[in-house]
């Protein structure tokens, strides 16, 4: 037993980030040491070579500062040649979906960032179902991925699924408006929704606190499932735990964006210049921009992707398959079910899938028959 415990202790120490010079010890113990502790490093190297991708959607009424915030977050200028439409041109505009893609590299790590913009949302007089184009888009991306996954060549699947949706709540209200509630409810099961309070520089600290409390309470009351930060593992260090706690208490984050650089306290910072003072975007006491950036990019980006894959995509997939099978039982095509999912080329894999589904269907039909029999019997008695 002692040898095993010793080995475990060693592996622990190897995995601990502070102890990097463990190679010496490895050589001494390599009779009892397997060596899979270096797996994270291998994964790391491969991922860096491959590069990461991240799709971020921004939604909210026009004039909430979405484009400015995106520019501030990623220090780019994605909207250089944007022409603002006036009300005349916007009369018959429906909600569009516009994608901007940009490749960013930092310290050897490549990120392919896609921003999905939703101009026209909430701008019309009648905003009934104005979120439909957005939900349709998200579903389309899921469907595309589903097909690619079930297809022949799975090596180079393009992951266009939306990993996170930043929803901008106007600071002018007293909480969530009906359109906010409906939008978030339509999307909370399809994508990670992160609510933000936009243009937070028009609110005093008291007002921000009141608004946050109000929004948090309404989110709970309406049962909206916004993105939850994962619980900290108990063995994380205190600093991380503290940051995590602060982040959770600050939700929804009140942010400010800026495209301009101003001079404040002797430094050049991103900010907004008012006659009564200067708002600094990256000053923690002015707004929660830094928290948002850290959360989105530095600590939770991978978690957002994971939740999209494991939860939202799986939900979609399960729903899709369920729809297919229920359609089949309705049509009563039990003998040779033709898959509704139109695959381009039949191959062994799909045949296997079909056979599996056949069996499942047969079982279900049997169960149904049994139940019907029971009901009949019950009636007769």
């Amino acid at each position: 037993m002692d040898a095993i415990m010793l080995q475990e202790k060693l592996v622990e120490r190897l995995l601990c980030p502070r102890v990097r010079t463990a190679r010496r010890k490895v050589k001494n113990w390599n009779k009892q040491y397997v060596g899979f502790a270096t797996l994270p490093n291998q994964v790391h190297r491969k991922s860096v070579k491959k590069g990461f991708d991240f799709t971020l959607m921004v939604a909210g009424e026009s004039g909430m500062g979405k484009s400015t915030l995106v520019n501030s977050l990623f220090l780019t200028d994605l909207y250089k040649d944007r022409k603002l439409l006036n009300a005349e041109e916007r009369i018959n505009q429906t909600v569009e979906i516009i994608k901007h893609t940009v490749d960013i590299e930092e310290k050897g790590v490549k990120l392919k960032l896609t921003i999905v913009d939703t101009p026209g949302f909430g701008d019309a007089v009648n905003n009934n179902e104005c979120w439909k184009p957005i939900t349709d888009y998200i579903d389309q991306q899921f469907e595309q991925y589903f097909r690619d996954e079930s297809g022949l060549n799975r090596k180079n699947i393009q992951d266009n699924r939306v990993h996170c949706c930043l929803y901008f709540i106007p600071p002018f209200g007293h909480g969530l408006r009906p359109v906010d509630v409906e939008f978030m409810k339509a999307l909370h099961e399809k994508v990670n929704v992160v609510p933000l309070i936009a243009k937070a520089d028009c609110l005093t600290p008291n007002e921000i606190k009141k608004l946050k409390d109000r929004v948090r309470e309404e989110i709970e009351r309406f049962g909206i499932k916004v993105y939850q930060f994962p619980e900290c593992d108990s063995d994380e260090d205190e600093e991380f735990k503290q940051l995590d706690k602060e982040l959770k208490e600050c939700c929804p984050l009140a942010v400010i964006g800026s495209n301009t650089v101003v001079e404040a306290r002797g430094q050049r910072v991103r900010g907004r210049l008012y006659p009564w003072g200067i708002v600094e975007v990256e000053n923690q006491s002015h707004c929660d921009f830094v928290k948002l950036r850290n959360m989105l990019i530095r600590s939770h980006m991978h978690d957002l992707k994971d939740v999209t894959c494991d939860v939202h995509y799986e939900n979609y997939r399960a729903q899709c398959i369920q729809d297919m099978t229920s359609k089949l039982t309705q049509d009563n095509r039990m003998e040779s079910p033709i898959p509704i999912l139109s695959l381009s080329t039949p191959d062994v894999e799909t045949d296997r899938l079909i056979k599996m589904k056949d069996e499942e269907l047969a079982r279900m039909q049997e169960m149904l028959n049994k139940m019907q029999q029971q009901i009949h019997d019950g009636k007769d008695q």
Partner: protein
Amino acid sequence: MSESIVPPEVRPKPAVPAKPPHVAAPSPTAPHGPSGLGGGVGVDRVPGLGHSGSGSTLLGYIGIDTIIEQMRKKTMKAGFDFNIMIVGHSGLGKSTLVNTLFKSQVSRWSSGWGGEHKIPKTVEIKAVSHVIEEGGVKMKLTVIDTPGFGDQINNENCWDPISKYINEQYEKFLKEEVNIARKKRIPDTRVHCCLYFISPTGHSLRQLDIEFMKHLSRVVNIIPVIAKSDTMTPDEKNEFKHRVRKELETYGIEYYPQNEFDDDMEDKNENDKIREAMPFAVVGSDKEFQVNGKRVLGRKTAWGVVEVENPNHCEFALLRDFLIRSHLQDLKEVTHNIHYETYRARRLNDNGGLHPISANNTQDSNL
């Protein structure tokens, strides 16, 4: 050389019911006016002043101008009323602004109702009246609030309840006017002014703004106002105002002061200046803070204090001066002489004439 007649600085002691001035313009050659006329002496010669010379129609001080003083006294006794309507979707600081304008708690949140800010399902009209007094002048101020405007998902025709309310007030006034035995002072509940709050998106007007103002600018005096303007830096503010003005022009929306109602050049110049500066970008606040040793109304943030009455910070002072100190009476007059008359003419035309109804007739009138 004529001595110009200068009425005394102090108002003459007896506010004289002036004797009917029989004095017509005397012929330039007559040295003494009164003696050339039969009948009563129409002129009180104020000691110390000589005759008027040629070219003047008055030979002494009559006291016609004391009529202003008489009017003032009567108005002060009677007081006057002013009805202002505030429209805009919730959270734009409408109630705060009205409280700041009139320096008292006049909005609907002030009447002790500690209710939550719940968004009603349809547009409601809530009118709250207060009597405020300043310098001996009493004003019955009615603030008409419109909660629920623009807050729903589907806002089509959300201006209908507002339009209906305004027309109802005109109808009430018309009925009173048309009565045989009508009251001496008809209670005036007509909306004199409608403050429309534009959301400071920084881009342009929203569709709902345009629809509302298009439908209502012919019925009531609309004053567009940019709410919560501390969201925008000075450059953004100017750009936004410029764009908004252009859009209003494109859609032919005549906001108050309307171009067509300018009486003369002097008015036109003054109003042109105001129109150039509209819509006013305002900030409202009912809290005071200490700035440079003075107590000012403002909003305190982590980076500074926005002073409400500082013209560099926002245009609240301009709005207040315009609305209250210079154009208050004009707003009422335009409402009465133009909007109400339009409504009245339309009503009378529709009915092909009007039968006066007695005051006892509380049923459907012949209108």
